[in-house]
């Protein structure tokens, strides 16, 4: 079985390598991929949309439908992860760990024992005990705001520099995941609740689809942002640039929320009680 699979893979690879001899040379400006629709994008983007970053313009304007459905795929993946994993039956663990913050002593409280109330003196720990890590926690506390500002910059400057909703959303999600790793899952959920992440991931898709529907109300095609010129108070070409920004913000929100949903559910196997 193993040998047969290996032979099949090698045959397929050999055929592909044989086929690669007919490929255009690497970096050939006249290769088929670069000679049909791509010159149009490069030459007309600035005049059509006033967006200098061609990738963003193609992503959110020329191929707006594609990107909208990619966003819906991400949204669906987040929802599927919730449906697959989320369990609401809480299993009472054999013992719980609490740390008395002023002294740093860890308490193990068995099932049925008296659990400390929510006070500033006690904090609950995960069952897999880790020592209190001052360096990691304080470093993350100071770094995370800068990561998030960078993420917002990447989303907002997607037109003019490399970036956009997908990249910025992932960076924003990564900063929240970093917080959840450096502290614990419960303190992350206290700040950004599960309900909020689900709401945001739907909101992002709604912003995208709503912008498209709004341009239909102005008697234009779906996702034709030029029609929003009157609403935004700019000329139709700049309106495309602004429409792309609105759509990218929607994508960023959706991607950020889905990354956080995936982490919350995968790290705690759906219980959202104790995580990594």
């Amino acid at each position: 079985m193993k040998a047969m699979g290996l032979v099949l893979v090698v045959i397929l690879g050999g055929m592909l390598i044989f086929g690669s001899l007919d490929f255009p040379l690497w970096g050939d400006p006249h290769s088929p991929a670069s000679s049909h629709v791509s010159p149009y994008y490069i030459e007309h983007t600035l005049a059509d949309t006033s967006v200098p970053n061609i990738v963003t313009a193609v992503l959110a304007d020329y191929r707006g439908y594609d990107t909208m459905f990619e966003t819906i795929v991400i949204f669906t993946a987040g929802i599927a992860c919730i449906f697959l994993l989320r369990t609401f039956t809480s299993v009472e663990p054999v013992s719980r760990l609490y740390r008395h913050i002023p002294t740093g002593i860890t308490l193990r409280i068995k099932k049925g024992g008296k659990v400390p109330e929510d006070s500033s003196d006690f904090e609950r720990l995960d069952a897999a005990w880790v020592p209190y890590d001052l360096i990691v926690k304080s470093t993350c506390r100071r770094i995370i705001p800068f990561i998030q500002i960078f993420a917002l910059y990447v989303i907002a400057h997607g037109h003019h520099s490399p970036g956009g909703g997908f990249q910025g959303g992932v960076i924003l999600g990564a900063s929240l995941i970093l917080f959840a790793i450096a502290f614990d899952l419960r303190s992350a959920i206290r700040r950004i609740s599960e309900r909020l992440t689900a709401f945001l991931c739907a909101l992002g898709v709604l912003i995208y689809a709503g912008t498209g529907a709004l341009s239909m109300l102005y008697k234009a095609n779906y996702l034709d942002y030029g029609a929003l010129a009157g609403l935004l108070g700019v000329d139709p070409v700049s309106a495309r640039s602004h429409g792309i920004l609105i759509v990218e913000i929607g994508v960023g929100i959706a991607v950020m929320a889905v990354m956080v949903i995936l982490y919350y559910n995968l790290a705690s196997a759906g219980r959202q009680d104790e995580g990594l």
Partner: protein
Amino acid sequence: MDEVMAIFVSRINWWVYILLMMIGLYGITIKQNFMKKVIGLSILQTSVILFFVSIGAKKNATIPIIEHAHDAGYSTAEAGHFINPLPHVLMLTAIVVAVATLGVALALVIKIYRQYNTLEEDEILQQLGEDK
């Protein structure tokens, strides 16, 4: 000899991606452990993404962001000066979708482990046979 060398140099990047694809495909089809299958899937995705990005390259061209000044009017861009933006657009979304679908795959793996207490394909098939 020089001809062989020229072919090798001009094709080496495609061959590396094909090799990566073979590794990924081998992982998906042959490995019995579901976690390893998921890793194989990721390697396969990576090879396809690298392949597409490589298609977009052009000699003597720069990144597809047109230099411009505020209120400078619209200058015309020449296609030869910028690399092909289309593969980048496609792969940009594909990378994020790959992460999201990887999350779903891991969720399924967790679910399978909860059900069968194992991730080995043959052991799960054995358990399924016993159920009948």
